């Protein structure tokens, strides 16, 4: 993956597949940036958790080739830049994936286009609610897909028109984070 936003999109899909109804995503940018994806899905037992970082393990039974690269790829990219990677899971409660990156390290991946990732997660996964918090320095934004659904009066955020309204809003919010103070 080219950047963290693509990893987040990929890892959050695991949560949805684990029947999560709520996924919290947190990005805290700084010299050491930290990331978290936490869900209330079915969780993993010790054995599954141990295997989750093995690239030749997947729980997807429909697959002929037994490959699950999502988490191993992320862990590799985190460790390449002196970051820390941690995954915790409680069966029946949920799973959380946390990692940090040293942003001054030459191999550290940029955050990337996080607004696209958040937009796709919030609009394309109907049965799951997402909350997204993004901090950078003193700035902080927070977006809740449940609140968006209520404001829009529909759960079907994947309607192209509705989806574009959501996209504009997320973009607006991300601009608050990204706009540098005028010098």
């Amino acid at each position, binding site marked *: *993956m080219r950047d963290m936003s*693509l990893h987040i*999109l*990929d890892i959050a*899909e695991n949560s949805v*597949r684990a029947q999560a109804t709520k996924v919290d995503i947190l990005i805290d940018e700084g010299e050491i940036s930290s990331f978290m994806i936490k869900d209330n899905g079915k969780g993993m037992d010790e054995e599954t958790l141990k295997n989750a970082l093995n690239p030749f393990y997947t729980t*997807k039974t429909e*697959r*002929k*080739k037994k490959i*699950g*690269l*999502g988490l191993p*790829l992320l862990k590799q990219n985190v460790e390449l830049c002196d970051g820390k990677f941690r995954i915790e899971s409680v069966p029946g409660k949920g799973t959380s994936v946390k990692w940090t990156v040293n942003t001054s390290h030459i191999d550290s991946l940029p955050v990337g*286009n996080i607004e*696209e*990732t958040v*937009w*796709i997660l919030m609009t*394309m*996964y109907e049965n799951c609610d997402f909350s997204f918090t993004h901090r950078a320095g003193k700035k902080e934004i*927070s*977006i*809740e897909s449940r*609140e*968006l659904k*209520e*404001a*829009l*009066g529909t759960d*079907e955020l*994947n*309607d*192209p*028109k*509705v*989806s*574009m*309204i959501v*996209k*504009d*809003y997320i973009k607006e919010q991300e601009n608050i984070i990204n706009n540098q103070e005028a010098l």
Partner: protein
Amino acid sequence: MKLEDLKKIREKMEKSTNLREGKGRIKAVVGMGTCGIAAGARDVLSALMDEISKRNLSDIVVTQSGCRGLCDVEPIIDVYEEGKQMVTYGNLTPEKTRRIVAEHFVNGSTVTELVISSK
């Protein structure tokens, strides 16, 4: 989230017309597994939604799926259309995706050169 933001969003929604009705004439499924995402599926999905919204197409449903074993030809879109064969487009880019919307979804002719399989 701020209340005034939510209010603005609600107003925008009230103004927007031509919302999707029913389950749609065409269902387009974008592969969003690890393989798809690594190959550029996010940009493809983004272009797909953008083009459908720009053209005011209210009879198309877009969803996503995990990896379905066609990793080598990702990004892919499966197109389901009532009374027709399912068509899988592969090796997509945002540009190719916009072409599919114009030629297949609007004009009704399959973009043969982008088809990976159909059944």
